[in-house]
């Protein structure tokens, strides 16, 4: 189908790319269908989370394992059941990203991850009940540290 978006114009998507969010997102409960799009420059870590119902609604998302090796969102059994998951390990996990005026301070919302069961094409935004994670986790340093540039990683480690 042809999907209208304000950021990318009209794009062709397959029906099986559409993920159902029966509860929408928090604060966006009427947006119940989304697709995940690659950025045109294919920055592999970052993707777009585009609403199918609202052409203007989209989020930059990232898989938190790209920067946080220890990210382990704990889901309630009720949430796993709603998503028809037997464990979080079967899920695709994303967090929204906010880029402020100074982009070095870009952050990810680790407290409210988006959990997707790709096989069932079902998703939900979960609010974790933990003090371990925040809504504004700075990600630049960790991304650079985890990327292939060994030289850069060591220089970042030294400035700590």
């Amino acid at each position, binding site marked *: 189908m042809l999907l209208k978006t304000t950021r990318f114009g009209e794009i062709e998507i397959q029906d099986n790319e559409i993920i159902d969010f029966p509860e929408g997102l928090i604060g966006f409960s009427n947006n119940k269908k989304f697709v995940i799009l690659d950025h045109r420059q294919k920055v592999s870590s970052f993707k777009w989370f585009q609403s199918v119902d609202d052409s203007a609604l*989209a*989020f930059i998302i990232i898989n938190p394992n790209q920067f946080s090796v220890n990210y382990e969102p704990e889901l309630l059994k*009720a949430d796993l059941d709603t998503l028809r998951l037997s464990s979080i390990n079967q899920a695709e996990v994303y967090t929204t990203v*906010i*880029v402020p005026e100074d982009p070095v301070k870009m952050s990810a919302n680790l407290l409210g991850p988006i959990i997707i069961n790709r096989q069932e094409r079902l998703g939900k*935004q979960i*609010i974790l009940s933990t003090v371990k994670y925040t*809504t504004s986790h700075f990600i630049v340093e960790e991304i650079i540290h985890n990327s292939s540039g060994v030289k850069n990683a060591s220089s970042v480690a030294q400035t700590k």
Partner: protein
Amino acid sequence: MLVLSRKLNERVVIGDMIEVAVLGIIGDKVKLGFSAPKAVSVHRKEIYDIIMQQNIDASKMDLAKLESIIRVLKKD
């Protein structure tokens, strides 16, 4: 807003499927118990509001913002 007063152990039913019980009252704290279908989430409002505001802020990201991410990560 509907306002009801309940005593300890009294309950409220919302729609057909949601129940709220007053399980304890200690000082200025009320312990509430919730029975709801799995698909209905229950959250402390102040946390819910923080997540909602994050979503609203995150929804304002445009292509230029992602370009700036690429620039920051490429610099090093």
